[in-house]
């Protein structure tokens, strides 16, 4: 009797365990969201979204203000662009957010096609640790690519000296620092290097993480900035927001028009303006705006996107989201520059608001 009882309980345990296991195996949504450390539908939220960490400070401000204004609660998980795209593909969130446009391959896996709606602009800045250099360092894309390829190894290399006439450059080695965690920042930076250096485009290429030819890796903007700050001779790249708020030395970069431009809210909006002038009317906005035309355009600029379904079967949800986007692109945009994000140029805002009308809500 005792034994049988044990066996029954034991068998039940096996069933219970394997049952649970099967469930999680056949339901990748659960495991993905759990692994990302994010609970999906939080109670009380009208809309849920997930994705990029870069625009999160602005988005959270938007969501808070919009909740106060329109009473629509939006729950956003800043788990990274890749995670956002995965969750959108699996249908666990109502919208996604990404710093890099989705690839054709990623788009093909979506159940519902999406619009890329640019919200604000970000920029990647080059920061360095060379106390000897008192005025902002001037660099070109080609020189940055060669530094990151490990071909230029000294600060007083001829190529750098030629761009900075009259500046006393240190004789030390350059220590290259890059992001080691997957990041939209890396995507924008390497997108730029690929566009200005055919060699870079061939060898490491562009991506959120890649095989770096040289240097050491830091985790996050703070990791890169920390390594640069501590190591004399180091060079690294961080987001504009981070560089501004931490008062890091920032290099001016030569743009397509041949001017050296320092990154600023104005110069990245100028980049979007220059690039947007060339967008065809039916653009899907999956376009790179690095090395954009325009006399004052900062060349390492980029959109960050919200990924929104083109059709919503749930009419109530769809309407809420479209209304929010309307608000974000008009009133919301005005908040961007205070947080060091580049607002979209007005011409583009108008086009995007018109684009929102083509989102089909309801069946």
């Amino acid at each position, binding site marked *: *009797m*005792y034994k049988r*009882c*044990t066996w*029954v*309980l*034991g068998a*039940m*345990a*096996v069933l*219970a*365990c*394997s049952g649970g*296991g099967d469930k*999680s*195996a056949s339901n990748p949504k659960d*495991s993905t969201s759990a*692994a*990302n450390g994010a609970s999906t539908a939080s109670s009380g939220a009208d809309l849920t979204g997930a994705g990029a960490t870069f625009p999160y400070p602005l988005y959270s401000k938007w969501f808070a203000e919009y909740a106060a204004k329109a009473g629509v609660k939006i729950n956003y998980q800043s*788990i*990274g*662009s*890749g*995670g956002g*795209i*995965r969750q959108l593909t699996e249908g666990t969130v109502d919208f996604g957010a990404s710093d890099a446009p989705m*690839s054709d*391959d*990623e788009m093909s896996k979506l159940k519902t096609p999406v619009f890329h709606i640019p919200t604000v602009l970000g920029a990647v800045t080059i920061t360095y640790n060379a106390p000897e250099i008192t005025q902002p360092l001037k660099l070109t894309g080609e020189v940055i690519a060669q530094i990151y390829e490990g071909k230029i190894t000294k600060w007083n290399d001829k190529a750098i000296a030629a761009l900075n006439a009259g500046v006393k450059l240190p004789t030390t080695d350059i*220590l290259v620092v890059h992001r*080691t*965690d*997957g*990041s*939209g920042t890396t995507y924008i930076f390497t997108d730029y290097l690929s566009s200005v250096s055919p060699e870079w485009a061939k060898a*490491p*290429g*562009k*991506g*959120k*993480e*890649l*095989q*770096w030819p040289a*240097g*050491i*890796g*830091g*985790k996050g903007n703070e*990791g890169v900035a*920390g*390594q640069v700050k*501590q*190591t004399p001779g180091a060079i690294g790249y961080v987001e504009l927001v981070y560089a501004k708020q931490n008062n890091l030395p920032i290099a001016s970069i030569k743009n397509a028009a041949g001017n050296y431009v320092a990154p600023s809210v104005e110069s990245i909006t100028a980049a979007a303006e220059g690039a947007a002038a060339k967008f065809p009317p039916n653009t899907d906005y999956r376009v790179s705006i690095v090395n954009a035309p325009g006399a004052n355009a900062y060349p390492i600029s980029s959109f960050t996107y919200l990924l929104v379904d083109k059709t919503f079967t749930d009419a109530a949800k769809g309407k809420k989201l479209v209304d929010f986007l309307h608000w974000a692109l008009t009133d919301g945009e005005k908040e961007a520059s205070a947080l060091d994000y580049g607002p979209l140029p007005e011409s583009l805002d108008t086009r995007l608001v018109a684009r929102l009308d083509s989102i089909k809500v309801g069946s």
Partner: protein
Amino acid sequence: MSDAVATPPPAPIVTGGAKTASSGGDGIEGGIGGTALGDRIYGGIIWVFAICVPILLALIALEIFLAGWPALHKFGLSFLTSSDWDPVNGKFGAAPSIYGTLVSSAIALIISTPLAIGVSVFLSEFAPPWLRQPVAFFVDLLAAIPSVIYGLWGIFILIPALRLAIIPFLRDTLHLSVIPLFNGPNYGYSMLAAGLILAIMVLPYIASVSREVLLAVPRSQREAALALGATKWEMIWGAVLPYAKSGIIGGIILGLGRALGETMAVTMVIGNRPEIKASLFAPAYTMASVIANEFSEASGDLHLSALMAVGFVLFVITIVVNAIARWLVWEVSRGNKS
């Protein structure tokens, strides 16, 4: 730590229950019969718990393996031997991170084992009672520090110290640069930094277990050695440490497990460069760091699968290391008895 050593095995309780049940069946009614039923339920529940743990482990292994299979299948053995980690072109080889995990853990153990044993011998044999508790408390406290704090300490204290003092001293002043191990760049961010930080992190694990084990060595063992005319040193070396050997090895393995899996602190100081270099001063990478760094933005299926495969390899290495450790402990304790 002490409860890990002194937990009473639950098995005898269950056996006791079974005996009561059979005697209950002999006709004694009432209270004892009720106890027998309770015992059966209790026994059953214990069974469920006991079975669940290995099943859970097996399912985790299976899940990770299945998720990593596309990458393992595509790259085969070269996944373990190739140094190419190129997400842009979809080429994945985990050799540098496997190497980094093993070497950084080895450095940690080489540094922390003698230290930890030294601390525990001091605490169990030399320290006056009033000093024993506070020192033991502070050593244990090391285990309570979150790893990200270790990482920050690494960035702000350890790395500058390595870059400005330790590496120049080893490489240039002592002229150790003739050995490839000590010849290399001086960024501070390096395999050595990771090993040093891990050494501090695993120290409390080894030290606490060793201390408990040493304190559990019978007085008679010590007295016998002293009675034979041994000095204190000979007593510790000849009678106490051999007696405690298996427990100390167990502690070292516990520390090794911690070192293999540590992620945050290591990522912050190792430089994250997937290359196999002979030099301890060169930046490196570990398996746990690769996964932590790249998982959130890995959008390609193959990339994700490669990260899962790295997780599976880490899982297997941990299990193999633990199995070897169990075997070692078993061998040593068997040697003690004979």
